[in-house]
């Protein structure tokens, strides 16, 4: 028969006070503080969304997406008779799409190529300089980029306010975001994948194009989507470059409207207040959707 004795008096000199009730109380207080703080953190977005839904929902109908913005007289008459304001923001939606698509066409190739360059030249002087400049670019106020767009494009290239000038300003905003996210995702591709390709005798440019970029594709896409959602709501640079338009315009060399510009216009017109809510709701919805798609892509990649 084997008997095992366990010495329970390992350190008899240490006496534990039974203060478990006090500890439980402290625990509870701490938990309550955390809950209160997190409610404070999320309350702005909840309040904003609920306000926008309540105030803007009534205005969202088919016309909202297919008609251009009404003039102030139409809006005044509708309000007087208690109807919803006629018309919509179709000129803003098409304008925003046009401006952002052209901005992406400019920023994505340059940003991705620069990001790949930075990844391939870690620790080199010139690459570090570019990385730092790109970080500084990220801190440049958007109104300044608007002025740049005005000086470089409005005055020199398109000789007047144009969608293209707005796209240039927004693409400069997107660039540092895409550069950084490209570099970071490329870093996450294991080195041995690159070596595997090199060991097969694959030339350098094909390793980048056919192995590295496909392997980090979801990361690149996420960075691009976040950059787009970042510039979707930009107003200040567009005020100085695309100006705005009451018509649907698809000519990149002509003044063009955009959803944030319309919101600004509606704000300056007391009869259009209701359209502010619905336009803002639309814009936030768009940004949220892009963010959710980006999150889904990240989650899929991490699986």
């Amino acid at each position, binding site marked *: 028969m084997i008997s095992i004795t366990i010495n329970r008096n390992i350190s008899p000199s240490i006496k534990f006070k039974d203060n478990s009730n006090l500890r439980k109380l402290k625990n509870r207080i701490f938990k309550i503080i955390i809950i209160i703080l997190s409610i404070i953190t999320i309350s702005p977005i909840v309040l904003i969304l609920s306000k926008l839904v309540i105030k803007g929902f009534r205005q969202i109908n088919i016309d909202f997406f297919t008609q251009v913005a009404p003039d102030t007289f139409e809006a005044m008459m509708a309000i007087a008779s208690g109807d919803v304001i006629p018309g919509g923001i179709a000129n803003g939606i098409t304008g925003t799409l046009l401006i952002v698509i052209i901005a992406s066409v400019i920023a994505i190739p340059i940003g991705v190529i620069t990001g790949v360059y930075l990844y391939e030249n870690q620790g080199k002087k010139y690459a570090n300089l570019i990385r730092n400049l790109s970080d500084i670019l990220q801190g440049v106020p958007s109104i300044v980029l608007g002025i740049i767009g005005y000086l470089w494009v409005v005055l020199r290239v398109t000789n007047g306010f144009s969608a293209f000038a707005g796209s240039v300003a927004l693409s400069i905003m997107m660039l540092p975001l895409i550069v950084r996210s490209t570099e970071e995702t490329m870093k996450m591709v*294991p080195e*041995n*994948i*690159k*070596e*595997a*390709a*090199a*060991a*097969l*005798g*694959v*030339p350098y440019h*094909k*390793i980048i194009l*056919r*192995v590295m970029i*496909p*392997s980090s*594709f979801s990361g690149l896409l996420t960075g691009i989507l976040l950059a787009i959602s970042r510039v979707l709501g930009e107003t200040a640079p567009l005020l100085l470059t695309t100006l705005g338009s009451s018509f649907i315009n698809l000519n990149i060399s002509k003044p063009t409207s955009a959803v944030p510009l319309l919101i600004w216009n509606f704000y300056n017109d007391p009869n259009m207040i209701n359209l502010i809510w619905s336009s803002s709701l639309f814009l936030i919805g768009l940004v949220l959707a892009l963010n959710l798609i980006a999150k889904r892509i990240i989650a899929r990649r991490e699986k």
Partner: protein
Amino acid sequence: MKENNLDIQNPILSIKDLSIAYVQDKYAVKNVNAEIERNAITAIMGPSGCGKSTLLRAINRMHELYPNINTKGEILLHQENIYKMDTIKLRRKIGMVFQRPNPFPTMSIYDNVIAGYKLNGVKLKKQQRDEIVEKSLQDVTLWSEVKDSLFKKGTFLSGGQQQRLCIARALAYNPEVILLDEPTSALDPIATARVEELLVELKKKYTIVLVTHNMSQAARISDNSLFMYLGELVEYGKTNVMFTNPIDSRTEAYLTGQFG
């Protein structure tokens, strides 16, 4: 080299006075001279940090992917200096398998096998491609396991299967030499045994150079062994001779487990 009891006629590879430094004047490989026998398994052994992987990776000029690695001396493939060859052509003749299985994560099993052709833009007919994939996978005894899931991602396979897939990828391009850098260190004993059997089978057609941390692996499958210590080639000989009757005292100490 201190001791060499090998006399290799018509070697496929000759390493001459090879020194490699990662940091200026600190050599990870010092003045190595060795000749590699055709259609044989040559094992490079030694304790961690002895320069065995560094030596192996010099043979297909993998070091050139990274800056600041300084290489002196030469390596001849069929009497032709590899440092004067085009790296791309060289790497097509000398395939490599890595420590961790690294199938391309975006490609299917099928595409992984023919990745060498695909990424190099070699156009093949579908029939040729099917043939190469089937033959390469049969060579690594993976065909029966994956023939119904050829178009699934290679990364869904087990570690051992992935490693055999990586060997198939190297074979598909029909190299003359296959370099393996501790190919079984990330695998379990059963997968290791299968890879070892495979290598013994493959030496009939290819020349195999294997880095291993595992002495018993070198003893089991290799024909010739190089023992390296602190960047120097200490002893090079027939494996069965070296394991039973080592000449250098350091080799003996390592083989009897006194360090390593």
